[in-house]
């Protein structure tokens, strides 16, 4: 909503600068988004002139040389190119030094050999009108030299307001003036609709039927005859331009002006183009087509309302008029329609049609039926004044009456209870009165009657408290802390585990990614998911922004692959990323199942090339090392069991299990899947973090360790390649007895020395006893048992 400040000041004129007006409005709930300046920046050097002589330019056919009295000692010589300039005219003149709205400073300039000492102005040059066919000719009674700003609105500050959806009353300038009145205490001029030239009573010139009173609670119409369509006077044009509207003709401009002032849209029909002088308001038929003012054909549905005459639809109610009944240059009889429409229905219709207009954006918020009277009064008075119109007596008024709501009790004590600051009863009444609410004192406080234009918004005591608070209370509100009875202020175990896990991965060199919840359904194929795979039970959006964002991700793997592909294409494929986020699975009924997943993805080299050797690449084992680090940090152990996933390398993947519960997967991404994301290869894991958190111990108990140094023994055993390291270690642990504290593979050798089909595992054995330093002889029997157990697996000791 753009509000030219001089216009606003006509109704409420506080002794405040533009900046202070802006501040007061903003701090009382009508946010000023911006202050624009309309027209010239400085009114100096714009004056009224009188053309005393006007002669042809000796060297240019289309230029005239004028002698213009500008109130100075001598007339100014001004070269003018306008076709309509003539001696005897009173004109608008810019003198040297004047700054035009486009920023140029006027200087004396030679035009074809003659120095021009100023410029005779057109409407568009100073943004006071839309006419561009020549110079402005002013009324003759203005004295030469009079500042132009006294006659024309050549400069105005314009407030751009953010009006919240509950306040359509502020989509009219008088509503903003009332706010300014309440916010500053400056007097408010009487409402401009109090003097209505019209009358109630029957009106025969037009016949109106409303078939859908649910969508059209009120419809009023008046008829004006002897209308002369012409351009509007400049004061009106200037105001419309400053408010962001294009002047069209006096009739249309008056309807727009009345809307800007009252907040109530209205529409003028050419009565001679309304077939049968009949208007019928009805629901559209599904699929019905109407051609609107902009020449477009629109397809309607049964939730929309059209206005028919005898020849069919003339407009889409509340949204856009029809071409057929439009006011035009030779219009003489006008039907002025001012109606009230159901806000939500208009909102739905304008959204569905993709058509938002100044009218629909007001109607959709729900206006008061009483506002119809305001707009009729303002528009009729102006049509009479500006278009020479004669208003026929009577008003068509089809009004589905509604009961006035009951007054609301505002308890004085309740105001301070909610705000935390006292506003005394007298002040409450004063604020409410300034905002247009009537109130009378009752025992507990005030009994308040809500004015029509606020009835949608203010229905309860707490709404009145807000009215009081926003005018007085909020600005000087003290800052206190609540009592916080019973407030604890701590994270849950699960929340702490989540943070610890994320920190661990970040600490190990991974960057956390935050990907999209949205995914492309094609991702399911790229992940090689078979039909019927549970991961295909995705949540699908009904109204996605695009097909590629139409499902919710069933796994973080696809998000991470997206992030990895983005980076691989820009800075190369060496990446270590993790994500901690929600994944979704559709269920047969009710809401989706949501899991908090933690996933890591490694691609390419694990560390940059170094002058002291090359780090390994991302593979199953590097992913497992990361997983071990993570579980170590969480004080949790896991086991892997061989398992295949469609998106993982079948030989290099496993299920992660904790206490026999499956919590996720680990492995190398299937080469076909990596290829689908243009990655050379990748490895990673994913875990159900919610389930993991349950398994993570809450309290750690001290485990005693021996004060005596441990004894380490290394052995190398040659085993069949098919025997896993895990089997060997299990055999060792089973045979060793209590003194063995740790058994760990630290080297693997495959090659000629051990023969094809075999490999050698070097295993570090660590023994310790709680009560003494072990000697070699103490562990020899255990080592012998270990060797025997390995032999049972077909293993032989090397070296």
């Amino acid at each position, binding site marked *: 909503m753009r509000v030219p400040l001089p216009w606003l000041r006509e109704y409420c004129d506080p002794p405040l600068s533009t900046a202070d007006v802006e501040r007061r409005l903003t*701090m*009382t*709930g009508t946010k000023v988004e911006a202050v624009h300046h309309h027209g010239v920046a400085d009114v100096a050097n714009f004056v009224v002139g009188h053309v005393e002589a006007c002669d042809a330019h000796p060297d240019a056919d289309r230029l005239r040389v004028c002698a213009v009295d500008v109130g100075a000692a001598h007339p100014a010589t001004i070269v003018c190119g306008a076709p309509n300039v003539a001696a005897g005219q009173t004109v608008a003149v810019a003198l040297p030094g004047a700054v035009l709205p486009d920023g140029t400073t006027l200087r004396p300039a030679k035009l074809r050999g003659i120095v021009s000492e100023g410029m005779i102005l057109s409407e568009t040059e100073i943004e006071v009108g839309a006419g561009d066919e020549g110079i402005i000719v002013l009324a003759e009674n203005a004295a030469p030299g009079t500042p132009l700003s006294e006659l024309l609105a050549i400069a105005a500050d314009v407030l751009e307001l953010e009006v*919240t*959806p*509950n*306040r359509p009353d502020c989509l009219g300038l008088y509503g903003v003036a009332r706010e300014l009145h309440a916010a500053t205490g400056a007097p408010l001029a009487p409402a401009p609709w109090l003097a209505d030239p019209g009358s109630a009573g029957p009106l025969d010139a037009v016949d109106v039927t409303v078939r859908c009173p649910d969508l059209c609670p009120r419809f009023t119409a008046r008829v004006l005859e002897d209308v002369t369509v012409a351009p509007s006077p400049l004061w009106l044009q200037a105001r419309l331009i400053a408010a962001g509207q294009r002047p069209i003709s006096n009739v249309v401009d008056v309807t727009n002006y009345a809307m800007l002032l009252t907040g109530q849209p209205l529409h003028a029909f050419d009565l001679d183009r309304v077939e049968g002088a009949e208007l019928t308001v009805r629901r559209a038929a599904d699929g019905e087509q109407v051609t609107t003012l902009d020449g477009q054909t629109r397809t309607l549905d049964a939730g929309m309302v059209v206005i028919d005459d005898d020849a069919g639809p003339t407009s889409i109610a509340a949204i856009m008029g029809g071409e057929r009944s439009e006011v035009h240059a030779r219009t003489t009889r006008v039907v002025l329609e001012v109606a009230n429409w159901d806000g939500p229905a208009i909102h*739905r219709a304008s959204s569905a049609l993709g058509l938002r207009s100044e009218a629909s954006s007001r109607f*959709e918020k729900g206006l008061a039926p009483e506002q119809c009277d305001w707009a009729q009064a303002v528009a009729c008075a102006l049509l009479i004044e500006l278009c020479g119109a004669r208003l026929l007596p009577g008003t068509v008024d089809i009004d589905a009456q509604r009961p006035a709501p009951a007054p609301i009790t505002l308890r004085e004590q309740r105001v301070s*209870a909610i705000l*935390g*600051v006292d506003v005394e009863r007298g002040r409450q009444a004063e604020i409410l009165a300034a905002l247009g609410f009537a109130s009378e004192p009752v025992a507990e406080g005030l009994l308040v009657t809500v004015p029509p234009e606020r009835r949608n918004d203010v229905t*309860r005591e*707490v*709404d009145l408290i*807000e009215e009081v*608070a*926003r005018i007085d209370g*909020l600005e000087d*509100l*003290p*800052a*206190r*802390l*609540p*009592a*916080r009875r019973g*407030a*604890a*202020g701590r*994270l849950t175990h699960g*929340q702490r585990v989540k943070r610890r896990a*994320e920190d661990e991965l970040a600490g190990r*060199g*991974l*960057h*956390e*990614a*935050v*990907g999209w*919840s949205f995914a492309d359904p094609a991702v399911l194929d790229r992940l090689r998911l078979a039909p019927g795979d549970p991961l295909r039970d995705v949540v699908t*959006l*009904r*109204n996605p*922004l695009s097909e590629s964002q139409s499902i*919710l991700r069933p796994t973080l793997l696809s998000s991470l692959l997206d992030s990895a592909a*983005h*980076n691989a294409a*820009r*800075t190369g494929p060496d990446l*270590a990323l993790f994500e901690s986020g*929600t994944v979704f699975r559709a269920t047969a009924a009710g809401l*989706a199942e949501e899991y908090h997943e933690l996933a890591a993805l490694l691609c390419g080299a694990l*560390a*940059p090339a*170094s*002058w*002291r*050797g090359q*780090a390994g690449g991302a593979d199953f084992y590097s992913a497992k090392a990361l997983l071990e680090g993570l579980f170590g940090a969480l004080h949790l152990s896991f086991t892997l069991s061989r398992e295949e996933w469609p998106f993982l390398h079948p030989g290099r993947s496993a299920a992660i299990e904790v206490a026999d519960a499956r919590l996720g997967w680990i492995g190398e991404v299937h080469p076909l899947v990596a290829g689908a994301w243009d990655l050379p290869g990748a490895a990673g894991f994913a875990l159900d973090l919610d389930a993991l958190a349950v398994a993570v111990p809450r309290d750690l108990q001290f485990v005693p360790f021996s004060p005596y140094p441990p004894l380490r023994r290394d052995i190398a055993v040659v085993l069949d390649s098919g025997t896993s390291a895990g089997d060997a270690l299990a055999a060792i642990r089973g045979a060793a007895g209590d003194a063995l504290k740790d058994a760990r593979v630290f080297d693997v050798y495959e090659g000629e020395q051990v023969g094809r089909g075999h490999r050698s595992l070097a295993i570090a054995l660590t023994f310790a006893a709680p009560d003494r330093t072990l000697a070699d002889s103490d562990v020899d029997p255990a080592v012998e048992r270990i060797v025997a157990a390995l032999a049972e697996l077909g293993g032989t000791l090397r070296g």
Partner: protein
Amino acid sequence: MIERIEQLRGEAREQIAAAGDSAELERLRVAWLGRRAELPLLLRSVGELPPEERGPVGRAANEARRELEALLDARASELAARELEASIEQGAADITLPGAPPLNAGSLHVITRTRRELEDIFLGLGFTVLEGPQVETVHYNFDALNHAPTHPARALTDTFYVSEDTVLRTHTSPMQIRAMQAHPPPLYVVIPGRVYRPDSDATHTPQFHQIEGLAVDEDITLADLKGTLLEFARAVFGDRREVRLRPHFFPFTEPSVEVDVSCFNCEGRGTLRDGARCPLCKGEGWLEVLGAGEVDPNVFAAVPDTDANAPGYDPERIQGFAWGLGVERIAMLRHGIPDLRLMFENDVRLLEQF
């Protein structure tokens, strides 16, 4: 015999003094004092001497041995010190070479960092952290939050629908109801989480993150909201920040306010030191950071009485405040990130900056 001892002693002294390094010195130690060296042999054979010679020879030999031992030790420390000095001199590292093997610095996403920081501020103020479902019912997302059946936010253009009565939550506010359903008053919670709206441009992405706050008891006022958010503003933007509440409109709070924090870039003046307009607050001196208000009585009325929340949330007895803030907005303000869409690209060149 004594002469021989003195001779050995003299020779040894010279050689020890001349020893050039520790290895040579060790050889000398063996040569002069080893098992087969002359002086120890002589000492061992003292018993074979005539009784009158035993005393003087033994003493002389012992004395000689002790002196040589002392000389060897002294020379050894001297040489060791010199050698250490030489090795230190030679072994200087090129301190400008990169560390090896290289260790990557990882990072938490700026959204996570910011979210955790905000959580911590409110934890410190006594709030607990709750999370809730992102796929939400229309009831919790709109109906129970006092949105009229025709409220525009429900439109397909403003909300992602999964089914007729299921949406992707458009805010974290549905958890207000879920939290009150599960816990009795008093209640102090913050609810971080991902939310969704069908917008896409430099300042809107179809997903973003909010932190909802809810404080409910019998006497929680708008002044308490202001104090709580003042603590938040100072923790995030600096100790000199002020907050102001501006009236606004939200369906689920009444009164509703927008909360501005004095600009940390220009100290709330609107202009920089050189007189130029502050680019961050655009000369206003204030930055809009969140929406808030006193919980609307209709929201309390929408909370069902359950076994878990007795005595329930009677709007005549219970009141409180709520706010919803955008995590990305805070992160962008603080770190100067110009485009919201950068947040979800996961370009490592952005990730590694935080």
